């Protein structure tokens, strides 16, 4: 199986799985155990769990991140071990949870965590809450969009430096890019919005920018999760 020069041993992949145990976005021994074990599963591709491109893009406080020197350094032992002891090809999933960030872990209900309880204010295409009764996210302005796009690009660069064979951008599951694509969460009237029928091109504008910007920077094979 070949993906732009990346050759996987077979057509089996290990899906990215949130582990909810990172500290301030940093990987620890558990990530090495989890990924290290599955690197010898016999699958040709191993996806690293959705890794936030900025702190407020984490789904839960325990999500992996890749936004600074510390979070990058924390992943070095993981990549080093995978490279040394496995031939699996490693795809790093990068994402931003948008209005679904700052959430409780699934087995505790997944609800928003208030800033006063250790969460943070989320941002999204429009100030519409995910769940009725929850506080609405902040609408991203043009500067905010630029910040997120740059965060995707910088994280992609860090990921390549760590040794990822490819990058997958998380554009599904109601997270930020999906929130831009869907008229349910995107009610903007500027160049990043539009109706269901005619607005597809505009609503996908920001997501396209995230993707092309990462692609130019990483020069690795790139996929999307929708």
């Amino acid at each position, binding site marked *: *199986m*070949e*993906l*732009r020069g990346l*050759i*996987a*041993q*077979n*057509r*089996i*992949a*290990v*899906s*990215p*799985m949130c582990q909810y145990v990172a500290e301030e976005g940093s990987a620890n021994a558990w990530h090495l155990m989890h990924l290290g*074990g*599955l690197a*010898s*599963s*016999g*699958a*040709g*591709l191993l*996806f690293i769990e959705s890794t936030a491109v900025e702190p407020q893009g984490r789904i839960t406080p325990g999500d992996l991140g890749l936004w600074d020197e510390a979070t990058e350094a924390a992943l070095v032992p993981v990549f080093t071990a995978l490279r040394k002891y496995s031939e699996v090809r490693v795809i790093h999933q990068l994402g931003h949870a948008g209005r*679904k960030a700052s959430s409780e872990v699934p087995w505790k209900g997944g609800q928003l965590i208030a800033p006063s309880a250790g969460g943070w204010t989320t941002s999204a295409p429009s100030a519409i809450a*995910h*769940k009725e009764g929850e506080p609405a996210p902040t609408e991203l302005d043009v500067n905010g969009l630029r910040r997120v796009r740059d965060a995707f690009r910088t994280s992609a660069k860090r990921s390549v430096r760590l040794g990822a064979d*490819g990058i*997958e951008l998380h554009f*599904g*599951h*109601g*997270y930020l890019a*999906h*929130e831009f*694509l*869907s*008229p*349910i*969460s995107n009610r903007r009237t500027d160049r990043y919005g539009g109706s*269901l029928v005619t607005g*597809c091109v505009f609503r*996908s504008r920001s*997501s*396209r920018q995230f*993707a*092309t910007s990462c*692609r130019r920077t990483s020069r690795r*094979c*790139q*996929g*999307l*999760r*929708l």
Partner: protein
Amino acid sequence: MDGGWDIEQTVAFAQVLKARGLDWITLSSGGISPLQKIAIGPNYQVPFATAVKQATGLNTIAVGLITQAAQAEAIVARGEADMVALARGMLFDPRWGWHAALNLARQSVVSHHLTGEHLRRGTVSYSVASHTEPGE
């Protein structure tokens, strides 16, 4: 769900990004609203991968309650997706790939698309099976 992002728009979006160098797409669904209603079962998201693959020719990865080797092999052999990705199946059986290779190779009536056997003479010099038979 009604009024949301759907498979037609996904195909259109995938086409645009393919032209800009996208190499693959992993297809799942849901998550935009707690009001969504999704019927879950084995292969429930595979048709999304098939639709995008047929419409765009992009490499697709199928996910969603794929747990058995024969089930995974069938998805790939029938051309419904280029790859399959597993999460729970891998947690339950952290050597899932080894077992799949052994299982499918023993059957030897299947095409071994999944294990990569058919690529042996190509650019790939080993398959999953080589893990279980290192002397081969």
